[in-house]
């Protein structure tokens, strides 16, 4: 066991840091949950891509650098520490791309991945439906066979940034007559501007308009946009949810950087006699370190060829609770200014509040932890 990186990992860190120092916008971009911010973030994705920093862990042929997990984690640390913009491509990069690497054919990878890496095509996740959130397998949107492809109908909802995104990926019921809800589902990609698609923006809690629901009326999708075998959608989708819950969606670098900013805020306006607040700032620092080390332990397991299953639920519960605690501490430090919507911490706080809901609610994650990691009996569900 050791706590230091090899010299070549550190060299990679320096290279990333130098690039970021030279290129990160001096002033924060407008929120990526707004039309204006979305466009600005898309440009930033293109900038990253031009020097091959947008998807460092991908193979070079798709625009990456083919680096290992350790280097990816180091890149993330540097990325967030540099105060670089949030990733508007994250649903594509974190959720669809791993699915494509595992389940798509060569033609699909060659067609989809490069434009994802460059920010030219931004992807939205269309999984949830009004009646199917936690119980995703109960979904009712249909994919009906037609000449050369499928016709999608139904309603998807709470699709992050779908109001401005270009394409979406989701699961659809292609065989309504299977004995179990998890069967007869097909995983497809579709164009958000295709005939038959209506995108209705839904204001989030802070009113930002990028969330959306999608109404699909016989939207044609060619066979080449089916991922894996028709009917195998559930298995394919589940093989990648670990990414969403686990370390790729919320790398430790994010929290290390946030904890660092919190400490800065404490020094700027903390009252040294307020021991309770000081303790919470310290807890945030310790929490970020714990998450960092936990992640490195997992990464080391991956490197040794092990796989991680239900453990990703531990990540999810930890980071989502940690994120809220950190931001609440910042608000408490800000006092009356915490309420200002344009403050530096307001949007990240509002965003943190959603953490225990998306990527599988924390109640569901705790059930997974209790049943699969602790071996407790399965509850009624």
């Amino acid at each position: 066991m050791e706590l230091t990186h090899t010299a070549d990992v550190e060299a990679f860190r320096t290279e990333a840091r130098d690039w970021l120092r030279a290129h990160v916008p001096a002033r924060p971009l407008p929120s990526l949950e707004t039309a204006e911010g979305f466009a600005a973030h898309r440009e930033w994705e293109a900038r990253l891509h031009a020097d091959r920093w947008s998807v460092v862990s991908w193979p070079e042929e798709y625009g990456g650098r083919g680096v290992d997990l350790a280097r990816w984690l180091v890149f993330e640390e540097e990325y967030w520490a540099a105060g670089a913009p949030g990733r508007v491509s994250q649903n594509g990069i974190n959720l669809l791309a791993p699915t494509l690497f595992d389940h798509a054919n060569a033609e699909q990878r060659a067609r989809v991945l490069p434009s994802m890496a460059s920010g030219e095509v931004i992807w939205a996740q269309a999984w949830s439906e009004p009646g199917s959130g936690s119980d995703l397998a109960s979904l009712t949107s249909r994919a009906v066979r037609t000449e050369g492809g499928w016709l999608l109908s139904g309603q998807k909802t709470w699709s992050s940034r779908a109001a401005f995104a270009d394409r979406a990926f989701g699961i659809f019921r292609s065989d309504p007559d299977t004995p179990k809800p998890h069967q007869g589902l097909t995983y497809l990609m579709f164009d958000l501007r295709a005939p038959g698609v209506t995108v209705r923006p839904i204001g989030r809690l802070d009113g930002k308009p990028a969330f959306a629901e999608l109404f699909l009326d016989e939207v044609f999708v060619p066979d080449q946009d089916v991922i894996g075998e028709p009917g195998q959608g559930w298995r394919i989708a589940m093989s990648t949810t670990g990414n969403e819950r686990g370390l790729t969606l919320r790398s430790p670098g994010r929290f290390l950087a946030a904890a660092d900013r919190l400490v800065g805020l404490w020094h700027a306006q903390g009252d040294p006699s307020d021991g309770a607040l000081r303790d919470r700032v310290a807890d945030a620092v310790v929490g970020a370190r714990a998450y960092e080390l936990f992640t490195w332990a997992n990464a080391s397991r991956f490197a040794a060829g092990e796989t991680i299953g239900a453990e990703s639920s531990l990540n999810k519960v930890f980071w989502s609770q940690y994120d809220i605690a950190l931001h609440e501490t910042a608000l408490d430090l800000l006092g009356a200014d915490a309420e200002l919507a344009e403050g530096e911490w307001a949007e990240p706080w509002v965003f943190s509040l959603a953490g225990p809901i998306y990527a599988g609610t924390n109640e569901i994650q705790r059930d997974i932890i209790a049943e699969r990691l602790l071996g407790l009996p399965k509850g009624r569900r």
Partner: protein
Amino acid sequence: MRFLLTDEQSDFARTVRSLLGSARVPPAVRAWADGDAGPGRALWARLAETGLFALAVPEAYEGVGPLPLELSLGFVELGRAGVPGPVVESAAAAVLLTELADEALAKRFLPGLAQGEASATLTLPGGSPYALDADAATYCFTVSAAGELRLAAGRGKVLGSTDPARRLSLPPAGGGELLAAGPAVARAAEVAGRWARLLTAAQCLGVGEALLARTVEYAKQRTQFGTPIGSFQAVKHRLADTLLDLEFARPLVWAAALSPGPGEVAAAKLAAGEASYRAAMTALQLHGAVGYTEELDLSLWLRKARPLRDAWGTPSACRAEVLRSLTPRRR
């Protein structure tokens, strides 16, 4: 000790509650957030008919008060319904002017506030520098650290709050009409600040109750895995804990209304503020993604909970006050 409401007190609360229940409050809140105070003002006018605003004003100036317990009960209902506007500040301004005991000032402002014809916002030393809803209030009072009470001239630019229905602004520094100055102002401001804290606590309680009630209803109706989510233990326990928090904040609010010393009021604000914020977190979590949208009316209460928890005394300030108010026991 008979620590229960009288029939009259319960009746009053019920009257306010049914009035607000039949009024269309959510559209008024949304209009308020958009800078249209019309529907909100109409709501205030109907509230005035219940005598609510008169409860903070002495009889000599067309009021019926001061009656802090009745007023608190009314403010629980304002919170429950999500009524927008500087309600707390208007009552606190009335208290400030009453405490000053300046006949001319009292005559000039109190009758209008008692009748609900006028509203007021105010900033006090040690409180937030931002005035709430100054653009909609009839008067914007400020008390400076030096103990000058002024009627601000003009309104500062509106700054967005994380609750869009709370319109904040910095009152223009200095200037405006000087109404009074000196130690009497500082003393009156101290009392007014305590009332503001008490009434905010009551409002928090109402906000928490509304969040809990809506979430319980939702948990009975929303089904996942073929069963109402309210049947899952994780959901039940969070709702049960929310009820516990609120029910143990309520007696503190009543006690503070009966005996509004700094420690009692701080305890009430601490407990009610934290209970309602936790109720908001539970409501958001148990509603899942629909709870995270501004379209659902639930958002009107969700967004209120945090600013109200911090208004007129953050939990940390209240804890400090609780400890300050305790006289060390001699052995």
